[in-house]
C-alpha cells in the first residue's frame, strides 16, 4: 500500500479523494441542491448497495474461475454453465425440500463433482494446450446449455428466499430528513446483505487458507512453478482435482445466490461467464484479491451506471476494462 503511494502519488491522491467523496455521499445528509442535481439519496444508496452485493455474487463466480486459471492454467469457458447448473440444482432442491441452505450444500457438491469429471476427462488430457482447452470448453458449454434447456425449459426460475431472511432491514444510514425533523433510515433487503456477508466470509477464508496454511502454500507454489512443485513430491494431480472441484463448487453456490437475487434462465450462463471474464481481466488473472476488487468495481459500475446513465451502463463496464488494459494489461492486482 505504502509502496503504491510512493510510486504513484497522483493515482493515490485521486483514489483517496474518490473514496472520500464516496464515503461522504454515503454517510452525509445530502444538501438540497445535490438532491436536485443527481436525484434522491435513497436511489443512490440503493444503487450502491445493489452494486456491492452484486459484486459479492460476481466475486463468488470469478474467484473460482481465477483460482482454476491461476493454478492450472485451465481456461474453463464452461464456468458459466457450472453457475447455471448450480442454480438449477439449488432451485430443484430448495423447492423439493423447502430448505434453502440444503440447496446450497447439494449445489456445491454436485457442481464440484462435475468439476472433478471435467478435470479428469478433459483437462488432464490437454495440459498446457490453452487453445484446445478453450475450444473444448466452448463446445462443452454449448452442449451443457442445450442439455439444461432440454431439462429445464426456457422458463425463468426464482429460488424462494427463506422466511427468516425475507423482508427489509433498517440500516443506520440516513437517506433524508422529514419535514418534522425525523430522520428516515435506509431499508434494504436482508437476504442480499446476509449473502454479501457470506461471500465476504468465503473470500476471507479463501485468502487465509491460501496464505496461512500448508495446503495454501502448495497451491501458491503450484501457481508459481508447478513443475518444481511436482518434482518435490507433491501429488499435484490431486491438488489440481481438489482445486478444480472447489472452484466449480463456488460457481454452483453462486448459481444458487444468483437464483435468489435475480432469476435463472437460459443465457444466464453466458452472462455470468462474461462477468467473470471482465472481473478477472480488471482484477488480474489468478489473483483472489484481484477478483474481489474487480467484482466490486464492476458491480458498482453496472448498478450506478444503470441508475444514472441507463443507455450506456454496459459501455461503462467495458470502458473500465479498456482503461485497465491500457494502463495495466495484466490487471490491477496481478503480480506479473
Amino acid at each position: 500500500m505504502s509502496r503504491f503511494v510512493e510510486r504513484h502519488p497522483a493515482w493515490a491522491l485521486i483514489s483517496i479523494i474518490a473514496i472520500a467523496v464516496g464515503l461522504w455521499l454515503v454517510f452525509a445528509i445530502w444538501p438540497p441542491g445535490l438532491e436536485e442535481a443527481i436525484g434522491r439519496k435513497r436511489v443512490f444508496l440503493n444503487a450502491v448497495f445493489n452494486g456491492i452485493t452484486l459484486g459479492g455474487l460476481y466475486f463468488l463466480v470469478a474467484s473460482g474461475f481465477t483460482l482454476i486459471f491461476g493454478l492450472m492454467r485451465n481456461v474453463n469457458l464452461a464456468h458459466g454453465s457450472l453457475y447455471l447448473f448450480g442454480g438449477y440444482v439449488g432451485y430443484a432442491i430448495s423447492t423439493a425440500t423447502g430448505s434453502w441452505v440444503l440447496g446450497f450444500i447439494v449445489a456445491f457438491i454436485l457442481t464440484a463433482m462435475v468439476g472433478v469429471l471435467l478435470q479428469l476427462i478433459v483437462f488432464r488430457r490437454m495440459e498446457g494446450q490453452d487453445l484446445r482447452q478453450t475450444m473444448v470448453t466452448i463446445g462443452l458449454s454449448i452442449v451443457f446449455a442445450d442439455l439444461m434447456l432440454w431439462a429445464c425449459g426456457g422458463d425463468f426460475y426464482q429460488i424462494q428466499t427463506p422466511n427468516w431472511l425475507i423482508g427489509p432491514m433498517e440500516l443506520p444510514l440516513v437517506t433524508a430528513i422529514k419535514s418534522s425533523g425525523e430522520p428516515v433510515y435506509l431499508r434494504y433487503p436482508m437476504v442480499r446483505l446476509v449473502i454479501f456477508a457470506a461471500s465476504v466470509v468465503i473470500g476471507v477464508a479463501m485468502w487465509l487458507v491460501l496464505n496461512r496454511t500448508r495446503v495454501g502454500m502448495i497451491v501458491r507454489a503450484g501457481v508459481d512453478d508447478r513443475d518444481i512443485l511436482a518434482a518435490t513430491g507433491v501429488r499435484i494431480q490431486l491438488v489440481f482435482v481438489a482445486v478444480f472441484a472447489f472452484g466449480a463448487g463456488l460457481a454452483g453456490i453462486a448459481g444458487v445466490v444468483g437464483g435468489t437475487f435475480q432469476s435463472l434462465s437460459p443465457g444466464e450462463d453466458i452472462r455470468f461467464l462474461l462477468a467473470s471474464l471482465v472481473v478477472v481481466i480488471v482484477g488480474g488473472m489468478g489473483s483472489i484479491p484481484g477478483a474481489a476488487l474487480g467484482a466490486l468495481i464492476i458491480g458498482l459500475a453496472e448498478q450506478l451506471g444503470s441508475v444514472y446513465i441507463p443507455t450506456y451502463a454496459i459501455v461503462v463496464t467495458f470502458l473500465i476494462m479498456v482503461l485497465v488494459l491500457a494502463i495495466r494489461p495484466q490487471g490491477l492486482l496481478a503480480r506479473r
Partner: protein
Amino acid sequence: MSLAHDSRITVRPAALAQRPARIWPEINHPAAWIVAVILLIMPLIANGFFLIEIFASTLILGTMALSLMFLAGYGGMVSLMQLTIAGFSAYMVAVFGVSGNANISLGWPWWLAVPMALALATAFGTLGGALAVRTEGIYTIMITLAIGAAFYYFTNQNWAIFNGHTGINTVATPHFWGVNWRADIPFYYIVLAVAALCYFAVEYLSRAPFGLALQGVRDNPRRMAALGFNVNAHRVAAYAFASFIAALAGVLQVWNYRQISPGSVSVGACIDVLIIAVVGGITRPIGPFIGALIFVLLRTFALDFLVRIGLDGNRFRLLIGLGFLAIVFWSSDGVIGLWQRWRQHRGADRSGGGRRHG
C-alpha cells in the same frame, strides 16, 4: 519453457521450406477447377431456396469465418469479435442507408453508405485489435469475447442509433442498371464474387512479405522483434485487414436478410463463427467455407433429420456442440485435417510413404 522454444525453432523451418514450392496450388489442382465451375453455374442447377439459403449463406458465413481464419491461422490471434465487426458494418449500412425506420436511417444512396460502413467497421475492428494485441493467447479470446458481448448488450439498450432490441428492418438493397441486385441470381453472384475476392486476397497475402512476417510473428514474436519487425504493428495491421473482410461480409448479410437486430450479433453467434472456422480447419483459407457449408446444412436440415430418427427436433445446438467437440478432440485441424490425414494414410498404403500435395 526453453525446451519448447527450441523444438519450435527446429521444426518450423522444415515446414516453411516446402512452402515456396506451391505458389497457387489450389488453382492448379483439378478439384479446385471443378468446384469453381460448379459454383459459377450454380444458378442453373439449384433453385432459389438452395441458391440463397444454402449457398449464399454459406459464402457469407464463410467469409466472416475467413477473417477469423486469417487472424488465427496466420496471426495466431483467435478473435471472437469478427461477427461483431460484421454486425457493426451491417448496422452502419442500415443507419446510413435507406431503411423502414426513417427516424434513424440517414437515407444515403448505397454507394455512399457502403463505403462509410466499411470504413467505420474497419476502424472499429482495428481499434478492438489494437486493444487485443496488448495481450496474448487466451487473453485475446477473452477480451474479444468481452468486446463482442459489450456490443451486443449495447445494441440492445441503445435506441437512438441501434433501435434497441427490435433492430432496423426493411433495409434497402441496391437497385441500378435496371437490375435488382437482391434478386436471387444477381445476389448469388455478388456474394460469390466477394467471397472469391476475399479468399484470393487471403491466399495472396499469406505468401506476400506481410503475410510471411505475420506468420513469423505468430511462431516467434521475440525473434521477429529482434530482427527489427514491429510485432504489434503487424498484428494490428492483420486486424485491420481481417476487419475489412468481416465488414464486407456484414454488408452482404444485411442485404441478404434486409434487417439487422441484436439477435444477429449475440454472443452465441460470435461463437458460431469460431465453431465454423475450427470445424472447417483454421490453417487454410478454404477451411472456413467448408465449415460454413457443414454449419448451414446442419442448421437447415438438422430439424428434419432429428425428427426422422425419432428425436426432438430442437436439439440442433446439441448436435452442433457434440460435432464441434468431436472435431476438437480428434483433429486440431478440422475437417481439412481429417481429410488430409485420410489421404496421407491411403497414400502411405498404396505407394509406401507417398507425399501429400496441397
